[in-house]
């Protein structure tokens, strides 16, 4: 059987995440996967050294459009730690509300994408329709749907009125019902089970070795969550569970994300119903430091870690950002090896690498020297076809 090398990528929209995967195949089976990352490398860390502390909030929010609040919050935590600012309780609560809403929107987005990758487009449309509700809530609070710009150094920029709190609580009620429905669909629908169970297996010891984080790690039994282990904001005052699974496959990741949405709703309700009163921000100095700080934040995709070094001027000396997806890429190569080409899109999507829809791959058959181009969509169609042969058909749903 000729060995085939399939380049998959490079189109993966995110900061550091976009990558190309050179997959070596023997028949259907992936024997080896080599990664090339850095397609969206823009030089944000260098740019941050040329901007002042306030401008950097704006810049770092744009590291990632999906977890923008995560990056901005991790950054202001560092600045506040060095400047020794005491952030008001109400500001912490508002940061938490936006953070948890962001998690809801990100997980719903992932659920839709996973549905799309397995050929279950109905789920994609359903979950994205309900995601609009979360975006409504975020727009109500911050005035924008995607980049919220809620953080300032020493607090938040906008307060929440009682009407807004009521409105968000109302949205949560509807959402909870919908999420319950998705849990039923995700865990009982036989077609989803067939496509996700036993696919992309990452055993616990491998997950530990490869430093997997977030839902990716928790689905492999790595019980780690910054919100519980190193509580920031008001997470030590709310009651929530950290979801873990032992199935170590794509199905486990789906269950972890689905149940985390329920926990997020629980956290949101507790915070919204007991909003602390008082100021929303304290005055921050223009010049910070000297000093250094490292802080972590549990972003929807996993642990986000920021390091900041200040030298006493109004611009930072070093800003380091490690987005969660980078930590999870080392496991992707492992999960791909031994699985089939048909499962590759789903496995890559399962780490939630911010996602791509125009991913293209060229198929080069080394034996004959023939080459052709296969779009991500065609690959998806191919994978659905492949499963049809095994007796699982989504188009009839």
């Amino acid at each position, binding site marked *: 059987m000729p060995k085939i090398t399939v380049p998959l990528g490079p189109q993966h929209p995110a900061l*550091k995440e976009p990558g190309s995967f050179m997959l070596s195949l023997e028949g259907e089976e992936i024997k080896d996967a*080599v*990664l*090339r*990352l*850095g397609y969206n*490398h823009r*030089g944000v*860390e*260098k*740019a941050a050294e*040329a901007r002042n502390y306030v401008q950097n909030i704006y810049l770092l929010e744009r590291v990632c459009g999906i977890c923008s609040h995560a990056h901005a919050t991790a950054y202001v935590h560092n600045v506040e730690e060095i400047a020794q600012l005491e952030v008001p309780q109400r500001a912490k609560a508002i940061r938490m509300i936006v953070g948890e809403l962001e998690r809801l929107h990100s997980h719903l987005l992932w659920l839709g994408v996973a549905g799309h990758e397995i050929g279950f487009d109905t789920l994609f449309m359903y979950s994205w329709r309900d995601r609009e509700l979360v975006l409504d809530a975020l727009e109500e609070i911050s005035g924008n749907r995607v980049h919220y710009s809620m953080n300032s150094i020493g607090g938040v920029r906008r307060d929440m009125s009682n009407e807004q709190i009521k409105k968000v609580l109302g949205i949560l009620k509807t959402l909870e019902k919908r999420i319950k429905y998705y849990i039923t669909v995700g865990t009982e629908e036989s077609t989803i089970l067939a496509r996700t169970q036993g696919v992309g297996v990452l055993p616990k010891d491998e997950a*530990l*070795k*490869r*430093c*997997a984080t977030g839902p990716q790690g928790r689905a492999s039994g790595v*019980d*780690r969550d910054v919100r519980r*282990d*190193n509580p920031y904001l008001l997470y030590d005052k709310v009651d929530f569970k950290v979801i873990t699974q032992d199935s170590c496959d794509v199905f486990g990741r789906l269950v972890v994300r689905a149940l985390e949405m329920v926990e997020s709703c629980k956290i949101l309700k507790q915070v919204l119903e007991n909003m602390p009163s008082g100021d929303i921000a304290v005055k921050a100095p223009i010049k910070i430091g000297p000093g250094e700080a*490292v802080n*972590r934040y549990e972003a929807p995709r996993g*642990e986000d*870690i920021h*390091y900041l*070094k200040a030298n006493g001027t109004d611009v930072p*000396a*070093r800003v*380091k950002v*490690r987005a969660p997806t*980078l*930590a999870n*890429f*080392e496991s992707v190569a492992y999960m791909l090896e031994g699985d089939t080409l048909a499962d590759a899109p789903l496995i890559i999507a399962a780490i939630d690498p911010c996602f791509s829809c125009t991913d293209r791959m060229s198929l080069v058959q080394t034996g004959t020297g023939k080459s052709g181009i296969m779009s991500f969509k065609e690959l998806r169609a191919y994978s659905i076809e492949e499963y049809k042969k095994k007796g699982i058909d989504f188009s009839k749903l």
Partner: protein
Amino acid sequence: MKNEEKIKQSLEKQFSDKIEVEARSKQKLWAKVDANISHDVIKYMFDELKFQYLATITGTEEGDNFEVLYHLQADEHSILCTLRAVLPIKKPDLKTITDIIPGAIWYERELVDMFGINVIGLPKGNRYPLPDGWPKDVHPLRKNLTQEELSKYPKEGK
């Protein structure tokens, strides 16, 4: 602060005056060593002190030295220990830690590209994160280069 103290003591006992450890705040430890023993310290932390997780590796430039910060975590009590390895810019040699924790690979490649640190024993593979055709001796996060100067690279073709 009980666990922090315990880790601090065992590190100081093992490496005596070669290591400076400081417990700055709750669940955060900062340690400083010379780069030639950083590999041994990390091996000791993983083997004996139950550290399991490498969050990331940060490189910084401080005067005539590079400082490489390993952010390590022990799951048991979730203490984040930042181990600072100091190495001279003139001779930036650092031993890889991928033999202890394979997840370090992308972070070490970043050190190679962004600072020009020579990581000894790093497994072969694609570069990260700079574009193809970027000169091998230009390292964006070095302090002697400004954004304007960097914008010229890579020179050939667009």
